[in-house]
């Protein structure tokens, strides 16, 4: 569903040119759970931003659902992000002045859903992440793990085709990280394609497929088969 061919991304500042991605090639199939690892500054976020149409690229081709989206105008890109893509951020990125329901509602309003439809989806999404009883709470009243679950609910409410997560557990302790990971796995099982950047090799191992980015290029990738999950559990048992 996602194909990148020779994508290059150069950041130009007055002093330096940074090649964040060079001849980047990647294909992701519908339903995959892809974990992306790599050293800091290697281009993981840049890749995710380009995949999620958050920023453009210098050259190359990017096909999303078979459509070349290299020269999309701003409003069209916004519409695709809104309909097809769900985002999960390291810092949760909830809007502090809005309560949980209002936060989850944000993309639904941009989608133009009716009030009734929005209400239904908000309720369903928050229930799915186990926070259905806290609709009127403010983000600041929740723990980090709960906030990230709200962010996941927000990403899910629009029923996106795929989910992009940039270090979704980076700000969470291991217990909360595991809960979030389990949630993502459940979402993936239900059919949503997920690409997740992570620093945590244990979490990465739980994905079907691992990609390592080094210096703006895909370095190697390994296909993990199922049955790895218990290893992570034992690791965490050992830690606690």
């Amino acid at each position: 569903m996602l194909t990148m061919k020779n994508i290059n991304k150069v950041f130009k500042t007055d002093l330096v040119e940074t090649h964040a991605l060079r001849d980047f090639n990647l294909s992701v199939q519908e339903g995959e759970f892809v974990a992306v690892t790599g050293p800091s500054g290697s281009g993981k976020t840049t890749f995710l931003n380009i995949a999620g149409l958050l920023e453009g690229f210098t050259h190359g081709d990017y096909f999303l659902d078979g459509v070349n989206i290299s020269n999309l105008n701003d409003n069209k890109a916004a519409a695709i992000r809104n309909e097809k893509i769900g985002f999960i951020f390291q810092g949760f990125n909830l809007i502090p002045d809005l309560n949980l329901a209002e936060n989850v509602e944000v993309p639904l309003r941009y989608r133009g859903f009716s009030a009734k439809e929005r209400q239904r989806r908000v309720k369903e999404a928050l229930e799915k992440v186990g926070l259905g009883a806290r609709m009127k709470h403010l983000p600041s009243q929740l723990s980090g793990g709960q906030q990230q679950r709200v962010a996941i609910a927000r990403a899910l409410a629009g029923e996106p085709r795929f989910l992009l997560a940039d270090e979704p557990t980076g700000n969470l302790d291991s217990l909360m990280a595991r809960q979030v990971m389990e949630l993502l796995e459940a979402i993936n099982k239900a059919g949503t394609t997920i690409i997740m950047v992570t620093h945590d090799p244990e979490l990465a191992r739980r994905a079907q497929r691992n990609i390592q980015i080094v210096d703006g290029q895909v370095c190697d990738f390994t296909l993990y088969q199922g049955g790895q999950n218990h290893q992570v559990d034992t690791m965490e048992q050992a830690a606690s």
Partner: protein
Amino acid sequence: MLNIKPIVSSLLRSKSGPILLLMQIILSVAIVANASFIINERLTMMQRDSGIAEQEILTFAIYNFDPSIDATLQNKVDQRILRSLPNVKAAASTNMLPLSGSGWSTTLNLGPDPETAKSTPQVAMYMGTEHTLETFGVTLVEGRNFYADEITDDVNSPNILLLITKALADEVWPNESAVGKTLWAGRDVQVTVIGVVDKMQGAWVDSSDLEYSIIQNVDYSGNSYMVRAEPKHHEALQQQILDALMTENPNRVIDNFQSIAVVKENSYRDHELMVTVLSMMVVLLLLITSLGLTGMVMFNIQRRTKQIGTRRALGATKGDILSLFLTENYIICIVGGLIGGVLAVLLGQQLMQHYDLPQLNLIYPVLTVVGMLLVTTVAVILPARKAANISPAMATRSV
């Protein structure tokens, strides 16, 4: 406007920023509405038509010191000389200068018994001749002007004839002609109205009786003279007047040349100052408010860069971000405008009680709020466009 509800709740939850701005808008609306009302009152007052050829009338004073001068005679000679000067349309002596703030006034009665008779309002009392109407440049709308042989030199003469303003005629005899009517100045003195002039203001611009004036048939020999000529001739005329009158009799001082337009300007000086000060205040308040709005939006953009990036990532278009900021500030502006409008009315009532002001016309708060919405648009649109241009990548890039 589809996002009003969450915008309102987020405004209610956010701390001091919107409250301060709201208070600023409330105060601005209350003050600006009243100030513009007063400004407009004063401007309307200053723009009233005096009925008099202000620009064309050149006035000056003659002070005779020589005791051998026969003032009555000299007055007639001097007026004849003035009328003979080039470009002079008309000339007359007078007991008071229109719009000057000083002069004579009286009230007359509609019957002989001062105890029981109804009185006229306070009227400004000009002494004049058959030349006075022409010199003032006022129009006779009914009756006739004085004849030359009706003019006396004695202010206490019993044969008093009057030219009165239409405003006075309508006030005293609302549904009948004033011409031929009799008024009493005390028990014994009867005066007859022989003509009505369209408009001829008195001397006191702040008086509510400004439009009630009369001219009495007296050739008054005092100090004040009026010469009517095109303004462009005034400068030359001033020298010609000096030359001619000093040649006729050198034992005197002639000075204080000025047009009635200048006299009027001096009388309205306080009002002009008020208009200037209040206008500056209005401009300043609007400026401060718009700076406050711009400042707050810029501060919000700084503070909410990540939030804006996130909204963009979640599907907001640039237009959505623009309207987010506009809507947010329109809400503050409208709420502030409503409260400010009520405050404006209360302030107006206080001003009405303590100062001599009419009741605030409600159109002023309404227009002020409309103006405030324009100010808001102008102040918010540029920073909001900057916000709209924040990259969606800020969702992942900014801390």
